């Protein structure tokens, strides 16, 4: 099988976000970059599927500035076979990224499965996966907790609200967007980390994948930090008094119960 994974590099979840001088982007100095959390489940699932199907390969793709090559190397260190970096500006939107990734996938030999994370933890948009599927004309299943890989189709368990599970059957070739719980991602082994450093990562430019400036469909006009919250009220007294006073405030002042 030709198995592919599209991943995004994002700031570590501990990052204190600061803005650039004209508040149009974040200040990226000093940021520690990681592979977006849900993408780790996507990588792991791809590796497991490969190992069950001898002769298969896992190719990892990431679109973005030069720094994203590190994310690709992380995936190679986990055990992926090949890496492709598509050069995109920092400010590329989901549509441009999806078009670039789909464009790169179209240049590959017939793809059977594309894995992604259910959303990236930086912009939290949850659109790039479905857009890639749209541009490839593949069906997609998002928020996948479990998958059975049959010869013609994949049967997925997809998490929806209230803990309900949708069981969806989709024909190959297909895109699967992983939810936490799909598997337990492995750690990179030292020999694999060493090997990953030497692997060649293929580089594609925007023009190679048929993407231009006009594929940017939304733009961040400005960013602001959330207004600091005013100091809240601390409620004193013993537990019974505190509870009574809190409920009074919620009822009479905040009017939320």
């Amino acid at each position, binding site marked *: 099988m030709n198995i592919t994974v599209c991943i995004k590099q994002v700031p570590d*979840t501990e990052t204190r976000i600061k803005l650039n001088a004209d508040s149009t982007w*974040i200040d990226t100095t000093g940021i520690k970059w990681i592979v977006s959390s849900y993408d780790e489940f996507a990588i792991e699932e791809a590796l497991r599927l490969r190992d069950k199907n001898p002769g298969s390969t896992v190719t990892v793709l990431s679109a973005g500035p030069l720094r994203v090559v590190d994310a690709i190397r992380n995936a190679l260190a986990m055990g992926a076979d090949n890496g492709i970096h598509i050069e995109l500006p920092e400010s590329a939107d989901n549509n441009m990224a999806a078009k670039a990734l789909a464009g790169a996938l179209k240049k590959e030999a017939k793809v059977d499965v594309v894995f992604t994370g259910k959303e990236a933890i930086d912009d939290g948009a949850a659109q790039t996966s*479905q857009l890639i599927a749209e541009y490839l004309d593949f069906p997609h299943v998002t928020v996948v907790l479990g998958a059975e890989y049959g010869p013609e189709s994949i049967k997925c368990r997809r998490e929806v*609200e209230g803990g309900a599970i949708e069981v969806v059957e989709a024909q190959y070739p297909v895109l699967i967007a992983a939810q936490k719980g799909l598997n337990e991602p492995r750690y990179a082994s030292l020999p694999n980390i060493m090997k990953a450093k030497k692997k060649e990562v293929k580089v594609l430019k925007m023009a190679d994948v048929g993407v231009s400036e006009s594929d940017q469909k939304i733009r961040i006009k400005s960013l602001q930090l959330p207004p600091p919250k005013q100091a809240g009220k601390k409620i004193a007294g013993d537990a019974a008094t505190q*509870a009574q006073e*809190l409920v009074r405030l919620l009822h009479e002042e*905040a009017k939320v*119960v």
Partner: protein
Amino acid sequence: MAKVFIIAEQRDGRLKKATLELVSYSSTQGNETHVILLGDNVAGLAGELGQYGAKVVHLAQAPELKLYSAEATSRVVTEVVRAHAADIVLASHTPTGRDFMPRVAGRLGVGLASDCTQLTFQGTDLQVRRPVYAGKALAEVEFVGPGPRLATVRANSLGAPKPEPGRTAEVVNLTLNLSGLKTRVLEVAQGNTGRPDVTEASIVVSGGRSLKNAENFKMLEEVADVLGAAVGASRAAVDAGYRPHRDQVGQTGKVVSPTLYVACGISGAIQHLAGMRTSKVIVAINSDPEAPIFQVADYGIVGDLFQVVPALAQEFKKVKEH
């Protein structure tokens, strides 16, 4: 005034509150509000949509639409939106809305702003605000190029929907072509507890590691049930097995924006705040006066949750009784 198309969401023949919120908001902002309603035997819901401000309900009914699928939904929505030259297309940022809207955007070749918490209509144009970096920053987002403008909206962001009894919507039945679908929804297995989902509830009562075991969460369930609230949890509580992952609030869990969020024994780590900081009113109960959760709390109780929470259940019962 814009021609706004809203994709309604229903499960088992009941409309989602988030849908009514969108319809009510669009209509009060003076837009010509259309709703696309998909399902099997759902015509009865058009009246309710009318009361909340829908002018026209475009009804797509077929056995294939009984259970939601992204493929069928995006196909129907794209056709309707194209045929009527919509200016703006909205859906809720729910497991359903967020799933199919990108495909509609891709097919129309236009931009989609996801998980918006504020919408500003300007004639036929739309400006939105959305949290990024898990709520650590807010982005003003603009669309580039021709419309329609597409957005998904975080539940509970636009205010409570208000019905106007007596208002009705015109109903248009759509002719559908649903052949050649590549996905099939086989079943929906209910995992439900009878309580609302954390992302939908107006009130969320959450607990952390300090609850010590799954059993103690019954204390929070008692408070939740008095208020019709959902029960949430920190990652530490989920990792310890006290609650299922679907209840986890935070950067790698659910993002919630209820009217009231009650954090019981949760320290307020940055990844937890990411999931709940847009809540309207935040209450923190924590024995450590220095816990970071107090920095975002509107009301704070420094105390032992094992004493405060049961007392709280009693007090809420009193308020609810009269």
